[in-house]
């Protein structure tokens, strides 16, 4: 009898161990494939364009050599565009994943909650009314993003309990105000500022310059390792407040750090590319579906985000006779998924 028990116990332990190994293996394979895909898309972004330069020339430009023609096309136009797409996609993906995981709701993401619309409104205000420099614009849009999220959180906390439904409703209200402000600013804006304005409505990589990127690069370098360090507590938070704290997670500091990083990432990325529609919202669920639930999926989510943005931008540039900004492509992909998700949630009776 005792032997049987021991046997089945070792058996169970063995099963758990095997499961863990296979999950780990799946995670590694998926992350590896996503990384390779991202790299391939980055290469495509550098190689493709009006003129297709030989790989040798592109590599030479990247190494810092002067190549006639290619230096300008690749170094000044395509490289910043590729970097902006890569980093912004990564930032949107990770930040969306954090929101969705922490609030345990696939609908929760910086766009629906209205954070990116706060950032956008501030950025448009800086560009059109104050005519301020790029640095001031980025800082203002980050501050506005943080302030908006704080405001939404405070307004939706309510007397008794926190509710995701209320959070979303308040977010929609704030978003309506920000959007109408953007529309108005676009109307009073000078004609030559208007192409920039489309970016603030849908998100676009057009005309990104190298000197805009350092803020995004530095933020990613600081915050992504921090988020990776916090990914175990994040997984425990997904189990619920009480479960997490009984597993030894200091929930409040972890929650605040994660939310702050997610908001800063989304806001900085928005300051450079505009709110690229649906990426933050799509990346998390895709990554979880691919890499499996139950592992820390922030890196895969970031990679999926980057893949979406880069592929969307390539499609926007080359798939149609007109060049579409990336936000249109991702928006059209994302919207049906959002509706599908709503139908699914409604059927399950979550609301």
């Amino acid at each position, binding site marked *: 009898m005792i032997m049987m028990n021991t046997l089945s116990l070792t058996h169970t332990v063995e099963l758990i161990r095997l499961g863990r190994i296979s999950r780990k293996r799946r995670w590694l394979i998926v992350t590896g494939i996503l990384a390779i895909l991202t790299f391939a898309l980055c290469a495509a972004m550098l190689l493709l364009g009006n003129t297709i330069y030989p790989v040798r020339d592109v590599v030479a430009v990247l190494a810092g050599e002067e190549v006639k023609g290619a230096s300008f096309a690749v170094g000044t136009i395509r490289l910043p565009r590729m970097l902006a797409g890569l980093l912004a996609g990564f930032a949107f993906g990770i930040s969306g994943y954090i929101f969705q995981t922490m609030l345990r709701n696939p609908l929760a993401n910086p766009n629906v909650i209205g954070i990116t619309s706060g950032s956008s409104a501030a950025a448009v205000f800086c560009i059109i009314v104050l005519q301020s420099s790029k640095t001031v614009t980025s800082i203002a849009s980050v501050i506005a993003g943080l302030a908006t999220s704080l405001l939404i959180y405070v307004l939706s906390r309510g007397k008794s309990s926190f509710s995701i439904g209320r959070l979303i409703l308040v977010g929609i209200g704030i978003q309506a105000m920000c959007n109408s402000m953007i529309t108005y600013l676009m109307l009073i804006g000078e004609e030559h500022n208007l192409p920039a304005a489309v970016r603030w409505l849908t998100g676009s990589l057009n005309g990104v310059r190298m000197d805009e990127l350092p803020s995004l690069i530095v933020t990613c370098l600081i915050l992504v390792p921090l988020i990776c360090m916090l990914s175990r507590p994040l997984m425990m938070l997904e189990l619920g407040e009480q479960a997490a704290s009984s597993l030894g997670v200091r929930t409040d500091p972890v929650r605040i750090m994660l939310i702050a990083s997610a908001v800063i990432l989304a806001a900085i990325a928005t300051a450079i590319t505009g709110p690229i529609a649906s990426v933050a919202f799509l990346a998390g669920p895709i990554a979880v579906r691919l890499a499996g639930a139950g592992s820390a999926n922030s890196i895969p989510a970031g990679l999926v985000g980057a893949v979406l943005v880069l592929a969307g931008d390539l499609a926007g540039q080359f798939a149609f006779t007109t060049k579409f900004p990336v936000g249109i492509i991702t928006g059209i992909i994302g919207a049906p998924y959002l509706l599908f998700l709503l139908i699914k949630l*409604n059927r*399950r009776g979550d609301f």
Partner: protein
Amino acid sequence: MERSRLYPKHFTFILIVTIALFIVCVLASLAFGARWLTLSELMEGLKTLQSDTVTANILEKRWLRTIFGLCCGAALGIAGVLMQSVTRNPLADPSILGVNTGAALFVVCGMAFLRISTPQEYIWFALSGAMFTAIFVFGIGSMGRGGATPLKLVLAGAATTAALSSLITAVMIPRTFVMNQFRFWQVGSVGAGTWDSLLLFLPFLAVGALVAIFCAPGLNALALGEEAARGLGVKTGWLRFVAAFAGVVLCGATTAVAGPIAFVGLLATHVIRLLLGPDLRFLIPMSALSGAVILTGSDVIGRIIGSPGELEVGVVTAFVGAPLLILLAMKVKVRSI
């Protein structure tokens, strides 16, 4: 005693205050603008009807704008009441449910592919767009257990709005001529109206308002619940259809002539319901009146703030209405959202 049961509390008082506000708004709308008229100028202009003075010219433009705003506001007010009572949902408003965006998408497609350019053509496209979107959003929002709860409807509306606005931008970007046409239409403004578009709009307003008034007793019964209403002899399915149809026609027609103007219906209905209670026989005409006041008032505010130009009325109503939405979201009980 009999009288107090027939009319809501303080009805006469509220009616007088609203009418007073209405007159103030009309006068303010006539007086303020790029050039402010003094009271004596205004009186003079209103008394004499000759059309060769500067004042008379200004007044003619402003009369048009004012009447246009009043009609649009009334239509949006009635549409708001109808949608809220048909869905039995305090958050229903054409803009929140995405109906405006649907109308906008159809108009943009018409501009881009069929080269439509006059309000006469806009209106049919806007109406059919509004209709399709309303059916779609209600369909998605009422799936699953519990039927169409406010949160489900709002979310379905927000998602549909997101989807449709992406499509609008995609249609617009390759065609600069559409973009220029659309950029000014999209904000929602009563400044671009003409007597022609007003004449075009009036039949829709009249039919919608009449249908709404005839539906009022039935909708009152519906507010007691589906079964109670049926028990009282109301054909609920038919009633819902007619009332929703009228609501969509009203806001679709408004969108066609003035562009998407948000939150007026929500605002008007809630203020009046707070003051008068839920009886729709009073709610419908009073919401029309207060919708007209709100829209014209917002337009005046927009002209004062944006002077010497103007702040489009759609922007002003969003800033007045969105806080109300937030307030409602905070007050409504968590479970019932």
